[in-house]
């Protein structure tokens, strides 16, 4: 159609609407929108008299959108206007028909005929559009005919302040005991509660919402909501492109809902153009100081009318963002003003829409804009427009103009640079762009040989070489005078902070992300499991794996203390055990002695020295430790205890009695399995200069569980292989993940607080494989885990959530399965692995054909869980077998989680054939 297809649309569109060829013009326009509407209008006018509910829906929106685009172009041709009017009337009539038939609201008819099409034909495109979409909105509401919807729509638009005008209705409260007094607030604020008759219609404070039909009145309820329209697009016959175009044409100018005489306040219609007024950032409505607070409410997005909340601001007002007027300062206190201005600047709706900026002829995507704005050296005061960007050297400028600044190079934004990007005519090319005269001048002054129309490569550090040659010819910024020349020619110079690409990458990860970006980028993973399932190990692994400083100084201190007090606790349990064993042996002795006594009649000297006896010094220490533990004050004696008792510990540990007790540790139920790891290192750990190793931290209990919930935010570091292709993968480095770890207990009884995690992207459920033969008070731990899994999976909050099951502690499991059969757990009673020793020999050529018992069993358990999951949800469970103590294993499973998330994001983009292909791949993954 045109030579440069990338932006041919924009160029082509400007022309055609002026031509009077209506059907032709519309399809060609960039905003495909009119096409869609025109096509669907034809059948519509045929079915004009049919008050059918369904068919109405799409046409409404077509027309609305069409109108919007038309008014946005602000040069509506007469023909178009006619056409749109024609398209409007049938729908609105039908809408009215429909409405009248369903709910008898007479007033709507008048409103429809007067406000909708008439305004439009008057050429007052702005208000016409607004009014019409009101109507449309309300009719949509009607069609859905759900009362809650209706109320919802109403609520959004009629704001709190509207009802400030209290009506003096008598209260028949004849009970003198009642001293319930709501009046004071209003009395205090008497000046707020003016009763303007003008507004009574618009702000139906006296209305009761019992009559839903009244609420649908379009004029009264100016609920223009673009977002609602978007939702409806899904069910319509609109293609993908249409949607995209719609967002492009979003700069629809919202018009204020009411307009008084010129210069007056838009709400109270008083005042003149000289009275101080505050302006809505979206619709340009102006309010006097009496009305501004009521019209703008609590200003969650800064100075916008309550009805404009959520809409993008008018671009011409971008410069005013965060700049407070005198009026607000007068009305509100400093703290309030500061909050409003902060909200105005940083709220999501007020951010620059990415598609307003196109770089090298390509509109930016959301991620690209973020990349651009968050690079070390971003373009200053980015305004909507077309820019060119030289990725190699970082030159940045407006399309068709000389460079205006030098930003961070190598950003993956926009398309490839065009030779005519800066509209140069010097025949000298820098990085594929024909430079302007001024630049050439600068190059010459900088001492660069420019004879013979050379093509240069200029790097970000200013070194340049001729195209096709290897050797660097020199540095542009090498000469002292160059920068001065640049300043003279108003050309940009590189800022001092310009960094090499490597530094920039590391910065990217550490830089804090502004709030408004956060929810678009951070993906939350919820890590849950019963206690003992190793969630904290995985959490700690993630910290060690992905954080450059896994634990802060404080945390480190705490970890040492925790580990040390744990070891004391283990020792205490051991000592307690020792006492018990000693008593038992003594009792046995006595018994046997008494037997002896009976037979012999002589009383031998009772020898209470047993293998479990300890010396008096150690005994004193043991008694003291047990006493402190019993009183629950163990935490209080740290870290003083470490200094004092370190030598004693060594002595204790080397004592034969303790060694003997330690041998019988399996009889001490209180002693956790990890205790032996620490006890064997007890002497080292309880020194004052103890430095925990990563493994110590991983093994340690209670490092993260002291709090009910722990979360860590990280991004996956790019592997070396990815680095090479980082231009394509750069968005990935932006993606951040937040791993939230909660205890089963932390969710409260019956997972009462699970609803707080509705915004997580995925649940990682952790099960300890080695739990199958473990029992707690409530039964088999594996069964308990399974039940907890069931509770979580079936929780309404997680109805559509992806689940990744981590079968943890595979290393322990592999050892255990050889000794204890899996059938020990009732749930696994039908596990009958076909293993024969002979097979090992006969099939020795392939290891894969003969998986170990551990693998078989873990696979079996995975299948068990998968069946359970799919029976509960009908979906597929992702499973990953992990050894929590091995960093690589945890890394792999978390990366797997990332892949699942990515896949879910991309899934809708594939068509059905591709989909099936990928889905098989995914299923093969999950085994």
């Amino acid at each position, binding site marked *: 159609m045109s030579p440069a297809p990338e932006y041919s649309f924009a160029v082509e569109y400007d022309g055609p609407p002026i031509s009077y060829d209506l059907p032709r013009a519309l399809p060609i326009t960039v905003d495909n929108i009119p096409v869609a509407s025109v096509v669907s209008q034809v059948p519509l006018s045929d079915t004009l008299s049919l008050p059918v509910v369904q068919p109405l829906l799409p046409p409404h929106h077509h027309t609305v959108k069409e109108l919007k685009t038309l008014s946005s172009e602000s040069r509506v041709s007469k023909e178009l206007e006619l056409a749109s009017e024609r398209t409007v009337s049938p729908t609105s009539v039908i809408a009215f028909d429909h409405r009248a038939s369903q709910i008898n609201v007479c007033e709507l008819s008048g409103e429809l005929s007067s406000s909708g099409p008439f305004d439009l034909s008057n050429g007052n495109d702005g208000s016409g559009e607004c009014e019409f979409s009101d109507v449309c909105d309300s009719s949509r509401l009607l069609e859905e005919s759900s009362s809650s919807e209706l109320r919802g729509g109403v609520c959004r638009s009629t704001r709190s302040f509207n009802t400030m005008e209290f009506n003096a209705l008598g209260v028949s*409260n004849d009970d003198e005991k009642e001293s319930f007094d709501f009046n004071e607030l*209003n009395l205090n604020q008497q000046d707020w509660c003016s009763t303007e008759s003008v507004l009574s219609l618009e702000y139906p404070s006296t209305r009761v919402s019992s009559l839903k039909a009244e609420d649908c009145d379009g004029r009264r309820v100016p609920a223009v909501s673009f977002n609602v329209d978007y939702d409806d697009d899904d069910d319509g016959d609109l293609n993908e492109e249409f949607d995209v175009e719609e967002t492009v044409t979003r700069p629809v100018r919202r018009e204020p809902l009411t307009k008084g005489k010129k210069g007056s306040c838009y709400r109270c219609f008083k005042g003149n153009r000289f009275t101080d007024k505050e302006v809505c950032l979206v619709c340009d409505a102006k309010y006097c100081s009496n009305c501004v607070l009521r019209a703008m409410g*609590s200003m969650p997005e800064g100075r916008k009318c309550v009805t404009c*909340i959520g809409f993008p601001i008018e671009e011409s007002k971008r410069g005013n963002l965060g700049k407070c007027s005198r009026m607000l300062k007068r009305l509100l206190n400093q703290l309030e003003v500061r909050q409003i201005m902060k909200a105005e600047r940083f709220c999501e709706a007020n951010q620059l829409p990415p598609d307003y900026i196109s770089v090298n002829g390509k509109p930016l995507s959301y991620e690209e804009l973020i990349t651009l704005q968050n690079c070390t050296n971003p373009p200053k005061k980015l305004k909507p427009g077309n820019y060119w960007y030289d990725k190699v050297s970082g030159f940045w400028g407006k399309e068709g103009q000389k460079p205006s600044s030098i930003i961070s190079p190598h950003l993956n934004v926009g398309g490839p640079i065009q030779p005519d990007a800066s509209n140069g005519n010097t025949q000298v090319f820098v990085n594929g762009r024909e430079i302007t005269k001024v630049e050439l001048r600068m190059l010459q002054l900088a001492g660069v040989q420019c004879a013979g129309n050379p093509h240069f490569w200029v790097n970000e550090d200013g070194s340049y070489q001729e195209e096709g040659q290897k050797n660097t010819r020199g540095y542009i910024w090498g000469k002292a005078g160059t920068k001065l020349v640049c300043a003279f020619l108003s050309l940009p110079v590189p800022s001092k902070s310009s960094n090499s690409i490597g530094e920039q990458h590391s910065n990217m990860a550490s830089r804090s992300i502004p709030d408004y970006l956060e929810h678009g980028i951070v993906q939350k993973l919820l890590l849950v499991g019963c206690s003992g399932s190793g969630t904290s190990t995985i959490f700690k692994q993630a910290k060690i794996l992905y954080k450059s400083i896994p634990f802060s100084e404080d945390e480190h201190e705490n970890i040492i203390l925790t580990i040390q007090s744990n070891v004391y606790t283990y020792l205490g349990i051991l000592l307690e055990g020792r006492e018990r064993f000693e008593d038992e042996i003594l009792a046995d002795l006595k018994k046997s002695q008494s037997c002896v006594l009976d037979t012999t009649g002589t009383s031998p000297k009772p020898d209470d020295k047993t293998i479990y006896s300890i010396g008096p010094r150690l005994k004193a220490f043991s008694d003291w430790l047990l006493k402190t533990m019993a009183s629950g004050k163990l935490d209080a004696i740290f870290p003083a205890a470490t200094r004092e008792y370190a030598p004693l510990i060594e002595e204790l540990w080397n004592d034969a009695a303790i060694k003997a007790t330690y041998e019988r540790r399996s009889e001490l139920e209180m002693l956790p399995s990890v205790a032996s790891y620490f006890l064997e290192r007890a002497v080292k750990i309880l020194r004052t200069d103890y430095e925990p190793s990563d493994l110590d931290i991983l093994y340690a209990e209670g490092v993260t569980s002291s709090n009910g919930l722990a979360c860590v935010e990280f991004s996956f570091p790019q592997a070396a292989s990815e680095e090479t292709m980082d231009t394509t993968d750069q968005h990935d480095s932006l993606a951040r993940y937040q791993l939230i770890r909660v205890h089963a207990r932390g969710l409260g009884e019956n997972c009462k607080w699970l609803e707080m995690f509705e915004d997580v992207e995925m649940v990682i459920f952790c099960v300890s494989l080695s739990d199958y033969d473990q029992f707690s008070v409530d039964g088999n731990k594996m069964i308990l885990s399974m039940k907890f899994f069931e509770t979580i999976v079936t929780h309404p909050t997680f109805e559509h959530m992806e689940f990744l099951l981590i079968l943890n502690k595979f290393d322990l499991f592999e050892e255990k399965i050889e000794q204890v059969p899996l059938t020990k757990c009732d749930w696994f009673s039908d596990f009958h692995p076909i293993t024969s020793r002979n097979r090992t020999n006969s099939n020795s050529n392939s290891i894969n054909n003969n998986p170990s018992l551990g693998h078989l069993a873990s696979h079996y358990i995975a299948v068990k869980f998968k069946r359970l999951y799919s029976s509960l949800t009908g979906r597929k469970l992702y499973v990953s077998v992990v050894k929590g103590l091995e960093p690589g294993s945890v890394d792999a499973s978390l990366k797997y989680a990332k892949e699942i998330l990515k896949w879910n994001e991309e899934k809708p983009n594939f068509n059905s054939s591709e989909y099936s292909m990928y889905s098989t791949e995914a299923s093969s993954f999950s085994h």
Partner: protein
Amino acid sequence: MSVTELKERHIAATETVNNLRERLKQRRLSLLDTDISGYAKSQGRTPVTFGPTDILCCRTLQGHTGKVYSLDWTSEKNRIVSASQDGRLIVWNALTSQKTHAIKLPCAWVMTCAFSPTGQSVACGGLDSVCSIFNLNSPTDRDGNLNVSRMLSGHKGYVSSCQYVPGEDTHLITGSGDQTCVLWDITTGLRTSVFGGEFQSGHTADVLSISINGTNSKMFVSGSCDSTARLWDTRVASRAVRTFHGHEGDVNSVKFFPDGNRFGTGSDDGTCRLFDIRTGHQLQVYYQPRRDTEMAHVVTSIAFSISGRLLFAGYTNGDCYVWDTLLAKVVLNLGSLQNSHEGRISCLGLSADGSALCTGSWDTNLKIWAFGGIRKVI
């Protein structure tokens, strides 16, 4: 003593306790000749009536981007602090409906917040099991965030509820998922006393809500997932003064009656109840009017009007009933009024002077309701 013997004795003891409890219940029932509404009716009381426009939503506080979970009013000025799942505490000026502070929390999963009696600081707690105190007057850091001025850590479960001891900026009581309540000394950051727990006659499940007696700040009640409410004396931490049975579901909300001799509860079983702390009797049940087929909607939060005549109760379906406490009649449903919330009402609170009610909802907004009519002075 062998394990089996111990187990037997335990079973026997449990049975005895249950029997005694049952007998106590029977005894209470026999003593309970009437409830409040019955008596009030017999005295010829007529219910409070409200026109549909008598209570109006007069402010909408917009600014949170997540579900609002908790709110609290200051005692003197008309300020509100609210906690939301977006991980922020916002301090509002209720009159202008503007924010004065927006505090980004280190842990986003916040469940409760409270204003100190002087209005100088706010406290909040949540799933991180820590109660954090923010001093509103302290300077902000570079990003404009307030730093935590004190962390009260020691709970082993989430902090579900916190309230300052009236008139004392340095003392605070929290209720937690670890089945205990704790009285804190904020200046030292240490626990003054722990109520309940392993060895004491405390709650047997998560504590969800606490309320301190407004007339005698030594007493407070706690409501718990064990479907009981317990009365505590802060001077005697060892055991609960009284345990109130009656509810058939988690007690989500407890609130002292303004006179300090009664308290109200709201529960998962869909009822609100009124208990007398002196006799231990249940005075009245407020059953949610519903059809038989419907599931009862959970009561999330309750509040009394200044006189105690009205009880406001928020429900999970977005209703907010105004009960006449005397006659146990629903006077008004704020959820059916114009401008009402679009989601579950999660918290509500009355301003200190009783002039306005603030409701917080999962629709991310807070709304302030005030009396719209002119009272007839009798």
